[in-house]
């Protein structure tokens, strides 16, 4: 899956945990944190999901975002 994607994890991340996603946009919404970024292939997304697991974060959702022209 290439393109823009959005991952939600539960809870608000510490600055330390946010630093693990330096190449992604991190936004807090109530009780969740939204990570969004670009990927070239499925391997890259798997890598990010692995990192989330390794940090012990709880994955809420993963979705691909339709292109809106704001590359």
């Amino acid at each position, binding site marked *: 899956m290439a393109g823009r994607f959005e991952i939600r*994890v*539960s*809870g*608000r*991340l*510490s*600055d*330390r*945990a*946010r*630093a*693990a996603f*330096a190449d992604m946009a991190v936004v807090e919404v109530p*009780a969740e944190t939204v990570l969004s970024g670009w990927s070239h292939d499925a391997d890259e997304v798997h890598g990010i999901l*692995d*990192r989330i*697991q*390794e*940090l*012990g*974060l*709880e994955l809420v959702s993963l979705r691909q975002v339709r292109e809106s022209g704001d590359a």
Partner: protein
Amino acid sequence: MAHVPRTRPPQLSAGHVRRRALEDVLERGADRDLTVLSAPPGFGKTSLLAAWVGDDHGRATAWVCLEPEDRDPRRLWSAVLAELTALSAVPPSSRLHRLVVSRSTVAPEFLTELTAAITALPSPVRLVLDDVHHLADPLSRQGLAMLLRDTGDRLGLVLAGRRDPPLPLPRLRMDERVTELRAEQLAFSPAESAALLAAWSPSLTPAQVTVLHERTGGWVAGLRLAALSLRDHPDPDRFLDGFSGDERPVADYLVDEVLAGLPESRREVLRRISVAPEVPAGLAPRLAGRDDAAEVLDDLAHTTGLVAGSGARGDAYRLPELLRSHLVADLGRRGPGLVAALERTAAVWWAAQGAPVEALRHAARADDPALLADLVGRWAPWLAGRGEHAALAAAVGSSEPVGDARLATAAAHVHLARGEDDLARAALRRARRDRRPGADAAAFRAATERVLGRALPVADREPVPAEPALAAHARIGRGAAAVRADDPSRARTELGAGLALAHRLGLDGLAHRGRCLLAAALWIAGDVPRAGAAAARALAEPGADGPGSAPWSALARAVAAHAALLHADPGAARALTGAGEEVADPVVRFALLCARGGAAVDLGERTAGLLALQAARTALGDTVVPGALAATAALLEHRAAVGLGHATAAGAVTAWLAGRDPASPALALVRGWSAAAAGELAAARTAIAVLLAPPARPSPDALDVEAWLLEARIRLARADRPGARAAARHAVDLAAPRDALRPFVHADGGVRALLVDELATGAARAGFVARALAAGATSPAGIALSGREHDVLARLPSLESFDEIAGDLDVSINTIKTHVRALYGKLGVTTRRDAVLVAHEQGLLG
């Protein structure tokens, strides 16, 4: 979690909680084909399996923990095979002991053989693959599916990982062939949480234990961190208050608490070693930047249990994965260059230990192109020669294609190993653009270009590099260039030296290429028997069919096919050539297509064979080929044309050879053949005179043998029977050491009849003549002889009279004459000589 060594369950920690209920679930499912443990890190998958397997490891349970490099199927299946053969439940007679994983590639056939060998075991075994999410390549997935499908009750497969394994789980569930444990089952029960916390923090009250269990949801990694930070916590209730009600993720909070309980100096040590999952005692001070790092880690291990391992060989320091991931993130926050600098330190340290795989793993993340290029430059010849391309691919794949000759040449080898020749050539073009490569980088690039077929001339003073693995590449590269340049003697010297080095260093992938090239050099030099043997040996090597070996194996097949043709075995030649068209190298493709056409002619498909030979020549265009190959091709085609009475076609190929190589000695022979076919025997004789004068240079087409057979035919036509006999004998004597039978298959009938007389002479020559006459035998069927007739026939080639034969067989002369008349009738002949000739040609003798 990663463990060292990886083929052994980890030691269980002191505070380990035995989970009998889950072990019972596993035990009840032990007779199912598959057990799957699928959950995020820190759910205790590995510990549960280790406790369940216990002492059975090494008896009937094999254990392999996968690592990222197991993306390379060779690495994975080598470890699996080594573990299986070490089991005491596997008897020495098992076929598993005879299996070998090729160093260059894993073929599907290997997986089939592995499956068959397991199926044949006298008692069932179990194979645990931990961290199976690292299994990524299609071939290994296929292997897993094959093991599951075809081993019956001989193999229980146990797979643990962060994601579901790539197997059809729904169907297996329906067939009740799988036992599954997931996060919800693996989570600790309240009682288990209490037991774990009691072992680590005995002072907690039941109410505090309940809060911890609920907040962590029985997640073992979280419980463990909580227990560690509560151990000496001044105020557990405050800890628990902060823990509940917060919106922060549990892990985040726990890591904060653990780190808050340590002095900053120790936090710093942990942060700095976190870049490496495994930290040997020697690496710790380098990463931590303080000499007493190992003592600090030992102390943390004893007082907090945060650190596992002793730092000793095979027992490196390790941090809980959860903590380590947070520490790495923390490092990244403190400065973008910090992680890279520590990765660099680790890479340099591992390189100094002579560990290229670990060194490159760290260097790929060190953001230091100079260091990466340096390490790749140093290790690529060794890794590529051994076929360890995964480590190399990870290193060169981590950087954008840059103009550094070392990285670009390593990338070329990664592409070669995958059979991507075009990409390999593109990488070499990038390498060529590096205007200031070091001496070793230039030598490696040149060696790779030459092995790929680029005709880079070898300067007289071109030095051989000192580093042995690089020297092996350089020698074999020069050998390849010499083969192209039609200099077989130099090729043999270079290839011999290169092969000796490659064998000593275990560079099997490189040695395969070298041996295929050596076969070609021997063939061009005219030593067909040794060329055929070298080609056969190369083709029998494990991995000869792999994508990284295919171009060189095709060369060996061409050599073996031409050797088979010369030995009058066209069936084998045809089998070796395959379709031929799929080979990329135009010279090798031409050689294969010629052998295929020649085989068709020899198998009786003469018109199709001639057309195939003509087509191969047309397809070749202006491509330069070694002189011996052009001559061999021309002789095959010319003979086919003359055999069909097609003088124009014969003239065309003669002109082709003359245009390519006006000095080719084969021209004399084709002109002689054409003249003889036109009945101009004097002209034929003049044409081949040059070939009869010693010393004849050996050639793979047995030109000298052919010339003497034509001479025999000419003399026979001039009624010079003794001269013809002498010429035929000479042809036999030249052909016998090389086992060159094909010229005799195509020889003139009169000359073949002459050879019958040789059967009765000296045994050495007679043996070859018998095979020469039998070669090309049409069919052994069709003529049925009685046992007695056969006895008589067997004595006809001797010089014995019928009287003597009668005495031998203890029958009367009239009985013998009766048998002989019957024999002649069946063979359709009227003389004893013709009877022997026909008997040989029909495969009834010899």
